[in-house]
């Protein structure tokens, strides 16, 4: 059963898109990430133009993060103060990101930048996560394991504009979450991701927040950032495909449910290890494509209709 995507201007098999949404949703339910970092490359792989894949990916993440935030809110794992400081940075970042996206698109380098961003960030984060989870698994085997220091003072605590985040039990400079939010905002505009896979480690390791609080809070700000990206892409590049977004959503919502049920059966470090392996695999595939000689050195793009 085929459906014509009005913005992507191509026909796709409905079942393929539903299955893709379902698979990514399953993984996102399993690992607690938005799944955008998988969705966008898969969409590009099946032939959706990169700009449409990025904007539509952002639109779909709005939905999956909302359902995630509601679930975390019910469990009381939301720090609104932190969320809104991150958000302030995120709005600035995503606006800058959309402008940057338009500029790079006009240069003809947008595909390269999207892929490079993926390779760099997936590589760094996947690698670090893999190391960390392997270490944890080994430590658990050796029984006991050392306890990490709860709090460490670094240069980051010397920054001005300190704010008390009650829910997270932190007293840090507002510049830190602002900067992180801004950075992730730029990335989500360029890569079509919510940025959870960057935001989550940054909040845990740089801000020192509790893991349980991190996921919900990062999702909260992701909603607004991806909504902002969706809106700005809609008015500046007209690349948001609602039909594609709805199809992806339906699959993702169902898949996420099965994913979260399955997650209960696995240990935390095993989950993180698996996620890290997947992230590294996606990274290697993209890196390989950048380095290997393409089939055709030339590519065409319609600059303007006739």
């Amino acid at each position, binding site marked *: 059963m*085929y*459906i*014509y*995507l*009005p*913005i992507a*201007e*191509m*026909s796709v098999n409905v079942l393929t898109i539903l299955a893709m949404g379902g698979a990514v949703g399953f993984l996102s339910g399993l690992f607690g990430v938005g799944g955008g970092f998988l969705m966008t490359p898969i969409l590009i792989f099946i032939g959706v133009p990169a700009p449409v894949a990025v904007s539509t990916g952002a*639109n*779909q993440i*709005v*939905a*999956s*993060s*909302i*359902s995630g935030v*509601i*679930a975390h809110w*019910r469990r009381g794992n939301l720090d609104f103060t932190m969320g809104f400081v991150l958000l302030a940075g995120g709005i600035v970042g995503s606006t800058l990101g959309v402008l940057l996206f338009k500029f790079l698109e006009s240069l*003809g*380098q947008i595909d*390269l930048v999207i892929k*490079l961003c993926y390779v760099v960030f997936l590589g760094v984060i996947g690698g670090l996560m893999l190391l960390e989870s392997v270490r944890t698994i080994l430590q658990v085997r050796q029984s006991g394991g050392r306890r990490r220091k709860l709090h460490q003072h670094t240069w980051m605590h010397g920054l001005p504009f300190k704010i008390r985040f009650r829910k997270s039990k932190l007293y840090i400079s507002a510049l830190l979450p602002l900067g992180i939010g801004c950075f992730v905002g730029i990335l989500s505009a360029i890569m079509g991701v919510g940025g959870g896979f960057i935001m989550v480690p940054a909040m845990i390791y740089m801000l020192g927040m509790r893991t349980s609080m991190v996921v919900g809070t990062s999702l909260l700000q992701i909603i607004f950032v991806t*909504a902002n990206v*969706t*809106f*700005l*892409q*809609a*008015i500046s590049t*007209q690349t*948001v495909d*609602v*039909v594609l*977004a*709805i199809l992806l*959503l*339906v699959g993702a*919502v169902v898949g*996420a*449910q099965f994913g979260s049920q399955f997650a209960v059966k696995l240990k935390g470090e095993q989950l993180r290890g698996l996620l890290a392996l997947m992230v590294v695999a996606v990274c290697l595939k993209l890196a390989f494509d*950048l*380095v290997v*000689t*393409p089939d*055709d*050195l*030339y*590519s*065409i*793009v*319609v*600059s*303007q*209709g*006739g």
Partner: protein
Amino acid sequence: MNRLTKLSMLLLAALALNCEAAGKANAQDLIADLSSHRVDITTGFTGADLLLFGSVDDDGDIVVTVSGPRESVTVRRKERVAGIWMNTRSMQFNSAPNFYAVAASRPLEEIAPLEVLERQQIGASHLRLRAAAGGKKLLPEDENTFRTALVRRKQAQGLYASEPGRVTIIAGKLFRTQVHFPANLATGTYTAVVYLIRGGRVVHAQTTPLLVEKVGVGAEVYTFAHERSAIYGLVAILIAVAAGWLAAAVFRKV
């Protein structure tokens, strides 16, 4: 497909009768028409096949070309920079047809000499594609490479014919050919041209227009996105919010 064949036979028969009647009065050498003058891109669009048929009074070869609306295309060339392939040089072609198909009753080279094919722009490799002035200075041979690349990429997308299709001539009088339009078709006005070529010269030519349009929900979504993009963006977000909310509400009970 079967229905299409039957329809074409009927049309051909009707046309043949018509021609005989017309032949007595004033001979028209070439008559051609399409089975439909519209291609509707609906929500379930996966491509379309149209039948081009007609009758010819004289002997000679029939060549059919169908070309889409002209558009401006940028061809980019990748080069290895620090181990990574990136786009470096580009060239813009201002009026390349979006779609180009050709069909002939015999191989094109046998029908007409190269000059004629080039003058009439018959065959994807004979399309008159000119690089836009301005930009970086490029050598003439570069223009050729970029032009060939443009045709090659379009062929890979299924938008330019790689091989001419077949025009079948029945009893030296009636001809027919099928034109395939792929799913990634652009909207606009297309032109079908039928040539009667004898002794390497174009004796007659007839032009028929064809309209490709998005219809239904897809068309509305597209217009909405382009004409009221701010509201479209808000609606897209609202749909996502509602879907996320609904999902959370449904799965709470599970």
